[in-house]
């Protein structure tokens, strides 16, 4: 029996497809107080006076809280390992409001109607100040977003709240200026990516109650249950031992739920009132006060010699943190580390960055986590370099791409690539796309023109030396196993993937593995599901726990057979010395429950000192309408190296899903502001995510390498896959039309204007 590398059906699949009540709001008790938030209409304001008297009198209103009622202790909402790299810049409620949508007051009521009514009756007098909305004007500007004295960066990341700096730094290797000076071909370009919403279908939500011990129980749609427990302890200023966090099924996360966006509000209400409560963010709230991708402006200087060897890369990233710093010092790093590393011959590189506070919605973690932005910029610059050299962009990449055992410049988590099949990915993508025939474009003769574009990408597999995966494996009385997990399946399928690993290690059927997660009271500690860590890190913990449990099963079996443990074997069904002398797993399991002093349970924790990158190639074929400038992706070919694909079906669907999100980012999605700092795209009406009509073919293949440090040779897949569409589509549009769009999204207006400009210049 073997499950690894098989397209095993997800263990929770049938519950999901039949609509069983498995999500947070399906589980919330009916007597929950409804929690609602009054939101700031101003981007930068002070509460001069706030009156809640009449709001509290509304029939059914149980509590109204303002900044005067909450602990005065700053914390971060970022779900990261302690001490977090994100600054402590949050109160549950603050007198100072830093963006349109910032929380002004919390209302808890018996019904939604009563809560809504109370919101309207809260009287606030604001002192409205001028906001800083443009990220270019934030650094050393006169409007400070976080001037407060109790603002704190726990780790030195080049932050300075008196300069609106959330982080800054320069990393250098070699003499960039000298090498660039020697290069025959150089480009110097600036690219601009916008904030994007994760737009997971299940919006942010949390349900809280107190149990018979008076502890705060938090059922939440989160990727980071253990971090949420600490964050709530910090925010409520109570020991986190008084908090239990439970993760049910999650309706998507994509990083959004790596920030504790909603938990603090019902947690505070239930802690104060003793009553169960819940908060459900509307789509509107999930658009205006959530945790989107960081807007970044990235300047890339790239130089190549006459043979097409890329010798130097200089990347400067300006990142917009927005009003709070969740994930801001960390996301920016990936914009350089995971883009420069794609060019193995680079002799000198520099990566500099500033991350600034502004008065817009705070950014957070979104699939790709800065790598998406950086790879869009660097891959676009390389494409521009190729065109300047009149070299096929595929060829240029073949000369420079990462190779197994070769350097990964700027990437500190592996000096060289421990496993890599980028060359095979490129080769196969070329065949799938029929690149040589289609490059660069084909005029369709009907006002439409088709172009193709290419990009490479990488990501990490966990945060090296930091992310911790935990697995608890125990043998039950009936011979089944329970696998307790602290990582969070959010639809990605990790409960199943980790069960596949366990089943193979224990030589048992996957039905014989009961998988469970997450409850912070019971589950082994795990940093959570983010940073493409779960299969790679927790998978290894599962692997080790199983090996250890096998030893224990053998030891007890040997005792029953009255031989030494070294003399027995275990084949998943029997512990035996030979045909005649054997005890079944069931017998061992029962023995484990009666007169036994040796636990048949193992908890293992794993952390990898390296973060082996998965790699991929993406190729887009677009059709551009020369009249209207509209762009349609008619075909997308992607080949991924995720190491051993533990579950090829899930690898494929993750890749398809990531590519389509990437297409949304490339062509449609944009969080825009009015000049007062209000978000224009506050619903799915204005913020268009791709529908099934917006995409053509998406074709995915796997060319997996073998990663020695991963379970069964696995690396990661989840984030990598969003990184190629932006640069590949941008270049496909260029190849089709000659128009280079350096600011996402690539809207019909930008393309049409570009075409018009070309005509006028001719």
């Amino acid at each position, binding site marked *: 029996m073997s499950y690894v590398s098989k397209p095993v059906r997800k263990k929770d699949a049938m519950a999901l497809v039949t*609509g069983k009540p498995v999500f947070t709001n399906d589980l919330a008790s009916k007597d929950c107080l409804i929690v609602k938030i009054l939101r700031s209409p101003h981007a930068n304001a002070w509460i001069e006076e706030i009156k809640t008297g009449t709001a509290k009198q509304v029939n059914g209103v149980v509590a109204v809280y303002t900044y005067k009622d909450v602990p005065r202790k700053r914390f971060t909402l970022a779900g990261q390992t302690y001490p977090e790299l994100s600054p402590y810049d949050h109160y549950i409620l603050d007198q100072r409001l830093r963006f349109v949508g910032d929380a002004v007051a919390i209302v808890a009521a018996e019904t939604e109607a009563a809560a809504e009514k109370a919101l309207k009756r809260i009287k606030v007098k604001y002192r409205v100040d001028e906001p800083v909305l443009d990220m270019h004007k934030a650094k050393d500007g006169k409007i400070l977003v976080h001037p407060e004295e109790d603002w704190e960066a726990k780790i030195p990341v080049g932050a300075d709240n008196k300069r609106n700096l959330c982080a800054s730094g320069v990393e250098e290797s070699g003499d960039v200026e000298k090498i660039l000076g020697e290069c025959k071909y150089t480009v110097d370009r600036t690219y601009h990516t916008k904030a994007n919403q994760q737009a997971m279908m*299940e919006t942010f939500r949390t349900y809280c109650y107190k149990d018979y011990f008076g502890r705060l129980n938090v059922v939440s749609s989160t990727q980071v249950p253990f971090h949420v427990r600490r964050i709530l302890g910090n925010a409520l200023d109570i020991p986190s031992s008084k908090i239990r966090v439970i993760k049910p099924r999650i*309706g998507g996360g994509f990083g959004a739920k790596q920030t504790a966006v909603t938990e603090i509000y019902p947690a505070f209400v239930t802690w104060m009132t003793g009553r169960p409560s819940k908060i459900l963010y509307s789509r509107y709230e999930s658009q205006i006060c959530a945790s989107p991708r960081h807007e970044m402006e990235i300047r890339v200087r790239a130089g190549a010699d006459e043979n097409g060897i890329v010798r130097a890369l200089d990347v400067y990233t300006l990142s917009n943190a927005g009003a709070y710093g969740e994930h801001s010092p960390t996301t920016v790093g990936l914009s350089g580390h995971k883009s420069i590393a794609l060019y193995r011959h680079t002799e000198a590189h520099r990566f500099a960055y500033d991350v600034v506070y502004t008065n817009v919605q705070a950014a957070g973690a979104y699939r790709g986590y800065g790598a998406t932005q950086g790879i869009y910029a660097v891959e676009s610059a390389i494409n521009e370099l190729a065109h300047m050299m009149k070299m096929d962009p595929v060829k240029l990449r073949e000369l420079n791409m990462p190779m197994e055992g070769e350097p990964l410049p700027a990437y500190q988590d592996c000096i060289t690539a421990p496993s890599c099949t980028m060359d095979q990915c490129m080769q196969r993508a070329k065949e799938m796309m029929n690149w040589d025939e289609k490059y660069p474009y084909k005029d369709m003769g009907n006002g439409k023109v088709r172009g193709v574009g290419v990009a490479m990408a990488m990501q990490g597999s966990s945060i090296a030396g930091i992310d911790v995966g935990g697995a608890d494996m125990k043998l039950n009385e009936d011979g089944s196993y329970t696998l307790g997990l602290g990582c969070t399946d959010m639809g990605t399928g990790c409960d199943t993937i980790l069960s596949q690993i366990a089943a193979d290690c224990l030589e048992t059927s996957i039905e014989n593995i009961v998988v469970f997660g997450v409850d912070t009271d019971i589950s082994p500690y795990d940093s959570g599901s983010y940073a493409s860590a779960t299969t790679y890190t927790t998978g290894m913990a599962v692997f080790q726990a199983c090996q250890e449990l096998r030893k224990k099963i053998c030891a007890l079996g040997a005792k029953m057979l009255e031989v030494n443990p070294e003399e027995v074997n275990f084949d998943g069904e029997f512990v035996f010395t030979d045909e005649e002398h054997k005890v079944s797993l069931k017998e061992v399991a029962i023995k484990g429950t009666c007169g036994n002093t040796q636990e048949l349970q193992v908890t293992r924790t794993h952390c990898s000192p390296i973060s082996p990158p998965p790699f991929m190639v993406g190729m887009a074929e677009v059709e551009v309408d020369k009249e209207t400038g509209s762009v349609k992706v008619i075909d997308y070919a992607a080949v991924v190296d995720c190491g051993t694909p533990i579950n090829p079906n899930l690898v*494929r669907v993750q890749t398809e899903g990531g590519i389509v*999100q990437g297409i949304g980012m490339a062509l449609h999605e944009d969080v825009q502001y009015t000049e007062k700092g209000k978000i224009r795209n506050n619903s799915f009406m204005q913020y268009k995510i*791709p*529908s099934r009509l917006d995409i053509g073919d998406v074709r995915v293949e796997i060319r997996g390498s073998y990663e020695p440090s991963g379970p069964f040779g696995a690396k990661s897949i989840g984030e990598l896959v969003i990184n190629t569409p932006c640069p590949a589509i941008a270049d496909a549009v260029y190849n089709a039309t000659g128009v280079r769009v350096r600011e996402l999204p690539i809207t019909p207006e930008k393309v049409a204007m570009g075409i018009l400009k070309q005509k006028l210049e001719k």
Partner: protein
Amino acid sequence: MNLSFWLNGVYRHEEVEPDTMLLDFLREKGCYSVKCGCETSNCGLCTVLMDGKPVLSCSMLALRAEGKKIVTMEGMQKEAEEFGAFLADEGAEQCGFCNPGFIMNIFAMENELEDPTEEEIKEYLAGNLCRCSGFVGQTRSILKYLEYKKTKKREEAEE
């Protein structure tokens, strides 16, 4: 106000506020498969059948169900399992949050379209968003499912 209607095959008399939406009302009655993903009729997560036709329960007053037959996934468990197996075999059920609305609309499509092409399928389901799967796995599962239904029908006819 009084409301008399069929819910998953059972005739029911209920009390309902005039401004209650069908979505909230159905969830109150224990139909938790009905999900909400937006406030602007854009996502299709709340799709249920009303007299066999797909409707967005988020933007319809509960009172509109008067005298009608409402069917949610709770009333189509067997069918959901049947189609769902195909979706699951692609791994395309992913987080599952969009699945009930999406699948209910597939059942509506089956009623409405005879032997639809891939294009027709995409158009019919255009209002059902999914952020996880990228849609292509969903399409694969639908095509395989329809093929299976066709064969099944043929075999039944032959018998």
